């Protein structure tokens, strides 16, 4: 029997609210503690308790981090889904199932390990609720033995998971042991999957994107956070609340930040704009339906030139859609959110590290360009656990943009809020409360001239719009540039953004193995920098990979680079599941074959 070392997937099928999340995180961290790259994705229902949930761990020492569609090891704990879970397994996969379920094995082509998980947990405790929880740790023990997990690594993981709760630690270690013992005594290993210690995770972290974004906001100097709960965004402001609660106090212990749970998303953005206008770094965080509700205020922010940061943790669907599934379906909408001619700066982090850096950068850009900045992540990035290099302490100081203090005004002797003094389209602003007699101005969403006075004059109104266009021209060279990875010969280019990155990274290698050599540019921001055009110009066929139905980024590219519109092709994925490499590779390979014919 061949051994498949440090390269497999585990899927635990369970029920939400059953407490399996701790066990799954222990499992994940055990592998991580052994120096092997891995990450975890939680596939959960839009429900609080009682419905099917799947946790998937991908172990891959090459570092590939996207979802893999095929499950190598299935741990089946859910009566209601076990038939389907088993049906989906490829021949040769491993099935571990709880003998307490009514399921009886029917497939001959699997490596099946039945285990009386519930009974084993019963050896550790007789308290029913606790027993239910501990059942999950038993499968971790079983896997420890089967995969060859280092017991020290596992124990460390348990300690970390149940930190400061000695009783929980010992109960869980007990359950773990039962699993190990059962496997040792009752099971004979008949499968190929093994782990072996490596040194590839030293210093690294395991973190969710929403926590990383919240850290960005903390280190980016955010002082006002107004939000309204919505999945999969809530954990971002909630992480900010935790972090600020710990790290943001003045010497009297008073808060140097404010968090307001607003009555809805309209008010959330309204509060952010009020705060931004007053001079604070303010943010909100939401998902699709909330973005839709923010539409009117987004236009006000654009037109009055008020800074603010909006995190959009995208989820699947038009309307309510699939609130607990992932997608990249808002990009076209957010790019021009609001009626009339409106456009926005949009950042598109692909990694948890970029959640952190862009989380800070967003505040700088908002202040610099005096406009709302949207940070688009998605459920996959925001709520799943990713391995990453630790975040580096920011070396760049805050960029608070063109704000004039009273003494600046005294020196300059004049002030017009909306005049393009520097020719870059960015005007100067003062903050309310500035005591200088020249400082005051009136912000309005209606037509205004350079002096911020009301106007309906066609020429003045047009001048304002043209300056705004100039400002966004300036922004092109200031937002994060695309990152290009060479590998091709000028024939084929790939374009992607956000979490699609991980699938495309792996797909590049898969394609190369199939003889398709491609360059790959990862887009990181709107407005689209000039470098994007260069990339398009230097390839004959460009595939735009994204997780939506209508090819929204491709649409933006076609709009902005019409000369290359004809060479763009969409590689789409929109069933709510995180994108995997095979889906990308298959579609591109098929297209390439056609191109070759």
């Amino acid at each position, binding site marked *: 029997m061949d051994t498949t070392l440090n390269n497999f997937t585990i899927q635990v099928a369970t029920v939400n609210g059953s407490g399996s999340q701790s066990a799954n995180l222990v499992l994940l961290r055990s592998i991580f503690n052994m120096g092997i790259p891995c990450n975890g994705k939680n596939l959960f229902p839009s429900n609080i308790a009682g419905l099917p949930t799947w946790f998937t761990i991908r172990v891959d020492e090459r570092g590939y981090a996207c979802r893999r569609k095929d499950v190598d090891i299935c741990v089946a704990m859910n009566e209601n889904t076990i038939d389907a879970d088993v049906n989906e397994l490829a021949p040769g996969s491993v099935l571990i199932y709880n003998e307490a379920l009514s399921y009886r094995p029917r497939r001959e082509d699997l490596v099946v390990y039945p285990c009386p998980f519930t009974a084993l947990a019963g050896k550790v405790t007789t308290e029913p609720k606790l027993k239910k929880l501990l059942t999950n740790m038993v499968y971790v023990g079983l896997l420890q033995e089967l995969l060859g997990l280092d017991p020290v690594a596992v124990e460390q993981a348990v300690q970390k998971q149940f930190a400061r709760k000695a009783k929980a630690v010992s109960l869980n270690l007990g359950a773990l042991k039962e699993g190990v013992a059962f496997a040792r005594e009752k099971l004979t290993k008949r499968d190929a999957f093994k782990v072996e210690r490596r040194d590839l995770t030293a*210093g*690294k*972290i*395991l*973190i969710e994107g929403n*926590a990383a974004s919240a*850290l960005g906001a903390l*280190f*980016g*100097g955010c*002082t*006002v956070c*107004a939000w309204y709960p919505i999945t999969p965004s809530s954990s971002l402001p909630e992480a900010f609340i935790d*972090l600020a609660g710990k790290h*943001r106090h*003045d010497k*009297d212990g008073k*808060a*140097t*930040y*404010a*968090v*307001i749970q*607003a009555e*809805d998303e*309209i*008010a*959330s953005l*309204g*509060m*952010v*704009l*009020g*705060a*931004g*206008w*007053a*001079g*604070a770094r303010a943010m909100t965080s939401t998902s699709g339906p909330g973005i839709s509700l923010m539409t*009117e*205020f987004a236009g*006000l922010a654009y037109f*009055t030139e008020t800074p603010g940061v909006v995190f959009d943790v995208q989820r699947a669907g038009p309307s309510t859609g699939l609130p607990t599934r992932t997608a990249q379906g808002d990009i076209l909408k957010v790019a021009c959110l609001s009626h009339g001619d409106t456009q926005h700066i949009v950042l598109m982090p692909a990694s948890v590290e970029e959640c952190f850096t862009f989380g800070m950068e967003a505040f700088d850009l908002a202040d610099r360009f005096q406009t709302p900045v949207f940070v688009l992540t998605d459920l996959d990035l925001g709520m799943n656990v990713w391995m990453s290099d*630790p*975040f580096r302490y920011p070396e760049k*100081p*805050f960029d608070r943009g063109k704000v004039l203090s009273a003494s600046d005004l005294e020196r300059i002797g004049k002030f017009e809020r909306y005049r393009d003094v520097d020719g870059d389209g960015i005007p100067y602003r*003062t*903050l*309310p*409360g*500035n*005591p200088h*007699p020249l400082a*005051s101005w*009136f*912000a*309005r*969403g209606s037509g205004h001239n350079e002096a911020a006075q*009301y106007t309906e004059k066609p020429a003045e109104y047009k001048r304002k719009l043209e300056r705004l266009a100039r400002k966004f021209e300036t922004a092109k060279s200031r937002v994060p540039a695309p990152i290009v990875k060479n590998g091709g010969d000028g024939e084929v280019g790939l374009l992607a953004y956000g979490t699609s990155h991980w699938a495309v990274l792996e797909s590049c290698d898969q394609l190369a193995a199939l003889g398709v050599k491609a360059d790959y540019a990862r887009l990181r921001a709107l407005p689209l920098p000039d470098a994007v055009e260069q990339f398009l110009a230097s390839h004959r066929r460009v595939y735009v990979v994204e997780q939506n139905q209508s090819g929204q980024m491709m649409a933006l590219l076609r709009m902005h680079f019409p000369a290359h519109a004809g060479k763009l092709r969409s590689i789409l994925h929109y069933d709510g599941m995180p994108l995997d490499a095979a889906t990308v590779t298959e579609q591109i390979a098929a297209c390439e074959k056609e191109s070759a014919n």
Partner: protein
Amino acid sequence: MTTTPVAEATKANLNRAGLDKAAYKGSKSTLCAGCGHDAITNHIITAFYELGVEPQSVAKFSGIGCSSKTPAYFLSRSCGFNSVHGRMPAVATGALTANRQLIGVGVSGDGDSASIGLNHMCQIFRRNVRMLYIVENNGVYGLTKGQFSATADVGSRQKGGALNDYEPIDTCALAIELGCGYVARSFSGDGKQLVPLLKGALSHNGLAFIDVISPCVTFNNHDGSTKSYDFVKEHDIRLHELGFVPHYEEVSVEYDEGTTTRVDLPDGSYLTLKKLERTYDPFDKRSALSTLAASRASNELLTGLLFLDENRPTLDQRMKLTERPLIELTEADLRPGRAVLEEIMETYR
């Protein structure tokens, strides 16, 4: 250029901030001649001027409507934010949280606050944001040409004759019900009452809400309207005669304790409420609510200070906000050090 010496007479007109009344004006109004809103603008100017408020320390907010245009017509030395329809409370909440030293003044209309913006108005009552919130209430949407708003009374008629039979929203009743600590109603034509109410509001620690009946001469000043000048004059019942004594006034004002109640405000100023025909206790929430309900049933318009409670925590207090305005905090205050990041990273290992 020659420097004209300030004349004695002018000097006498300077308030304690060293400013004359002109310094509190704004740009020329573009409202209809006779609009109640313009009268309110003038009362606001008077109140701020007489109190000697530094105009630069004020931030003005509004939504959309004729009423919401007025912040451009007073205090041109103050910054202002004319936002979108119905959402002024949100914008004001954000700004006043960001800078707790700003003196916030919001002006809205009945359409802006009781129709599209009702939720936000209700929630700002609950949050108790420190600011003066004025609704210039004419019962109609002036700027869109006279449709009924949600404050139109049952039985009132539109200019075209259409009858309203929907229960009106009594914004003051909602304010009291939802925890606002300073609730008043007045009339644009009654500066004697409104000016002290405005001053009192500026001394209040929390949200001070004033509903001001403000006739729309163009669309709602006809017979059959319950927000016309004539109707208000006939139905206005003043609950008390109001006076305001600012904290910096040296001489204490004399009043008859038998007929007049002194209402102390947190900054040391006080209001005097001199009893008129009726007895009214503005400190009792339940009786305030039931008196308001009764007045609506009997078509009376009660004006004056309807409710006062200085013991409600403000939003800033609830958030235990630092005394320094958030906007003054620097990178050193806001960005935790390297060690903190390292410590946080460790929790993710």
